């Protein structure tokens, strides 16, 4: 399959990328790892006049500690996140989630910035960044701004990024003491995309009750979203199996459920609850063993 002809630019600075984007009137597409964009170009679902490859901009990839969290450059690959010692130690949820994405070859090319800017409703990293209390930094003609992950995903493949903005980095909170995390998913056997995926970050108080729960769900609705009903049901409670199972019943509260040939709405709802329970159980187990 051949994409429609397009012009190609590979700027070496973010400023140049933004200028090219502005000149195209927002019609150009940004290319990072290309594992969402290239399939769309090949299927001709996207026919941009210009593709701006940000893969050659120095400083857009890599992981560093910043402001009590981790800053991850937009073009950092999923493999790099999976392998990063910093991520494994300070935000293991992200390396665990990265390992669930696609397959090895896809992870070698796919980037965290690409997956978040694309906003696929069945992506994995979207839920992880939500549960990790994350945010993204975007840059446009008028400078830089930060968008909390909670405000990033608007609808199916629609994010809060303006057409003239480029996502430059992702920030996630460090998982502190007595905090455990987990990403659990039921994957489409062919594509590997989540039919239901749940990311959990749980902090236990000294007395073993849940001091803070951040749970996010993907694959079930038009966008990844916080499962606030589940969070509320866990808050302040002792996280035993019964409480967790009861909380997981709220997994799709407020979600506009998707039904398709892979899973109809009621099956997705069922899966979401099961996956939520498993995700929370594992996160709680990890929190309990972490001083």
């Amino acid at each position: 399959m051949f994409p429609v002809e397009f012009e190609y630019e590979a700027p070496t600075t973010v400023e140049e990328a933004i200028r090219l984007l502005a000149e195209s009137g927002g019609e150009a597409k940004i290319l990072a790892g290309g594992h969402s964009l290239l399939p769309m170009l090949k299927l001709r679902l996207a026919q941009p006049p210009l593709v701006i490859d940000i893969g050659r901009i120095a400083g857009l990839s890599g992981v560093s500690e910043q402001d009590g969290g981790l800053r991850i450059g937009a073009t950092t690959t999923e493999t790099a996140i999976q392998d990063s010692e910093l991520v494994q130690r300070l935000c293991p949820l992200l390396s665990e989630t990265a390992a669930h994405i696609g397959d090895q070859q896809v992870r070698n090319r796919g980037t965290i910035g690409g997956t978040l800017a694309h906003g696929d409703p069945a992506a994995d990293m979207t839920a992880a960044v939500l549960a990790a209390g994350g945010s993204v930094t975007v840059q446009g003609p008028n400078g830089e701004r930060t968008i909390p992950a909670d405000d990033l995903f608007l609808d199916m493949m629609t994010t809060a990024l303006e057409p003239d903005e480029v996502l430059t980095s992702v920030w996630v909170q460090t998982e502190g003491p007595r905090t455990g995390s987990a990403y659990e998913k039921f994957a489409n056997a062919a594509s590997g995309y989540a039919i239901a995926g749940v990311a959990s970050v749980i902090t236990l108080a000294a007395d073993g009750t849940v001091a803070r729960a951040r749970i996010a769900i993907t694959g079930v609705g038009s966008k990844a979203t916080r499962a606030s009903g589940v969070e509320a049901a866990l808050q302040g409670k002792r996280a035993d199996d019964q409480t967790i199972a009861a909380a997981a019943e709220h997994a799709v509260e407020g979600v506009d459920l998707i039904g398709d040939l892979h899973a109809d709405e009621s099956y997705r709802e069922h899966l979401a609850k099961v996956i939520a329970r498993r995700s929370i159980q594992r996160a709680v187990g990890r929190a309990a063993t972490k001083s």
Partner: protein
Amino acid sequence: MTRIITLRVNGKSYENEVSPRLLLVHYLRDVLGLTGTHIACDTSQCGACTVMFNGESVKSCTMLAVQADGGEVKTVEGLATNGKLHPLQQGFWEKHGLQCGFCTPGMLMSSLNLLQRNPDPTPDEIRHALEGNLCRCTGYQNIVAAVQWAAQEMKAKPAAGVAE
């Protein structure tokens, strides 16, 4: 508008004028004539087109040739050295890791990526690492055995599998 790209493929330098929409797999097959890299699903799923790019396995149907500009590609044609099969190729031979052979070039390149990351993988780890490569003949059993054979061989004779 076309662009000039310069890259190394299997240790040899190339410079070509290409259209931005040209996929890396078509560049390798149609421009360079390296037809060992196969095209099957063309949708980033089957892994038949897997090559190494800058030391990591990639699906060359999901990468533009212009993205490879300045980089280093290794295809199945670059595995054997001086007419001697790479231990992975030898392993697929010894353990009957193929029947029709169509998926084999991609299987070999993904296995190479695996053994670089993990020189002594368990059968489970091999299956997990090859989840992005589909085989419709073997049922995978002999492919796993072939990769294990190669891992043993490369442990016994480390020089045999040294990547460039």
